[in-house]
């Protein structure tokens, strides 16, 4: 059976664990470097990216996760996870942030791109190779730019902001700015698990 780790420092860890278990894989909470042993794929969940970033450093997980990525282990980042995977981040209101990042993907992300919580929403969007997904955008970031080895694979149509980058892929890594795990959407996790098995 495939073992998928879920980074469990902060955020909606439980939703990812429960969804993965439903898909018939072994889901494992990762809080310490030793928890990464035997992990064949890693999910970085939603939560506060500044909090998770600080805790990644305090828990000694930055280098172990970078090594995992170099070895080609698939990594999926949702919302805060996508921010942590990005190499450039700024906030729509506050501007440039100096928050700690994993910086594994060639993408630039704008935090709180759609506004505050009252502007959060549920929408459907098409993601390449995955299909049409019904997902939640919660104080969501936007993928403003992808370069190098990275490519934007999904956009959401927003009534005010127009077409906004919401999913990107780079080799073994997937970043999405939304939450499939909150609406009970299974297809993205299925796609992720299939990639691990390949």
């Amino acid at each position, binding site marked *: 059976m495939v073992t998928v780790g879920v980074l469990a420092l902060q955020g909606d860890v439980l939703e990812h664990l429960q969804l993965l278990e439903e898909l018939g894989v072994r889901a494992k909470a990762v809080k310490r470097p030793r928890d990464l042993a035997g992990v064949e794929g890693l999910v970085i969940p939603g939560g506060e990216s*500044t*909090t998770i970033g600080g*805790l990644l450093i305090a828990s000694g997980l930055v280098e172990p996760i970078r090594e995992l990525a170099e070895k080609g282990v698939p990594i999926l980042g949702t919302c805060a996870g996508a921010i942590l995977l990005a190499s450039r981040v700024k906030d729509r209101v506050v501007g440039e942030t100096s928050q700690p990042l994993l910086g594994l993907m060639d993408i630039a992300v704008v935090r709180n791109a759609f506004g505050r919580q009252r502007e959060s929403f549920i929408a459907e969007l098409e993601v390449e190779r995955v299909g049409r997904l019904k997902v939640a955008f919660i104080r969501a970031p936007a993928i403003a730019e992808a370069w190098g080895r990275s490519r934007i694979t999904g956009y959401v149509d*927003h009534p005010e902001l127009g077409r906004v980058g919401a999913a990107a892929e780079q080799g073994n890594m997937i970043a999405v700015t939304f939450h499939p795990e909150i*609406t*009970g959407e299974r297809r993205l996790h299925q796609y992720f698990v299939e990639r691990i098995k390949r």
Partner: protein
Amino acid sequence: MKLVDGYAYVERLKELIYELLEERDRRREEGLGIRQATPLVKLGFVSMFKGGVIMDVTNEKQAEIAEDAGAVGVMILDKLPYDVRMAGGVARTADANVIAAIANAVTIPISAKCRIGHREEARLLEELGVDLIDESEVLTPVDERSHINKWDFKTPFVNGARNLPEALRRIYEGAAMIRTKGEPGTGNVAEAVKHMKLVNRDIATLRGYYLAGDYEAIWVYAKENKVPYELALLTARLGRLPVVNFAAGGIATPADAALMMWLGSDGIFVGSGIFKSQDPEGRARAIVLATTHYDDPETVAEAQKMISEKASMMGIDIRTLKPEQLMQVRGE
């Protein structure tokens, strides 16, 4: 049953209560591409706080310290609960200008308190863009009989509860999140422990009924405790509160936070504990660390070393408070 199945249930519950099916169909016909402010959007947002610490702040500088320390959010007040207690008089929602300034200074979600039953303070907070509204017993209630109808807002609400029936009543009124009441501003975690254990005990009882197939007992529980049967049954099926549940009231040290996480809290509110201490920066970081690694004594010990007990807030023994000084009894 998964937590998100519970969320979907609460979403349907709102439609049942408010007969919003017509409204939903109308919107679908209009072909609106996105849907905002549904119960799921609120519950999902609150879910992102899990495993984190929300810190009480009164100004921009404190909010920035909290963000740098790794808080998942800040709770904006005019006075810290300890100072509310000392000042007496009527405690109201925070200064609108302070809220606006903090909103522009930090990237993490901002919360603020309104008085129990004060619908217009809540409207004001929503208008200011506050991400989470706390209908709080720390402020002076304006309505002793009823709470705000929270289904009616775009912004998610958190409410305090001392036991499971109070929590379920607040969820029925539309609260997207629950916290223990504890006894605010005391620096004494005893009441939060008591309330968390009371909630856990009732959940275990309901879960037992459910596993035994004793739906009659769940019905009797609902009737005797004045809670809707549907929510009692949902709690029994989930084996936990159907919404995120944080601990609050008297948490002052990393060990306090770890204790509340061990008791099953989804996360921690720290009120006076940080900014009434002599070492707020280090203490804020230490409490964040201990909340995440509560199940690892080595890290909790490491966090505890980051603070000095000599710098902790003095605290108040609850037994020295007069009955009229207790905040937890406000709004049942």
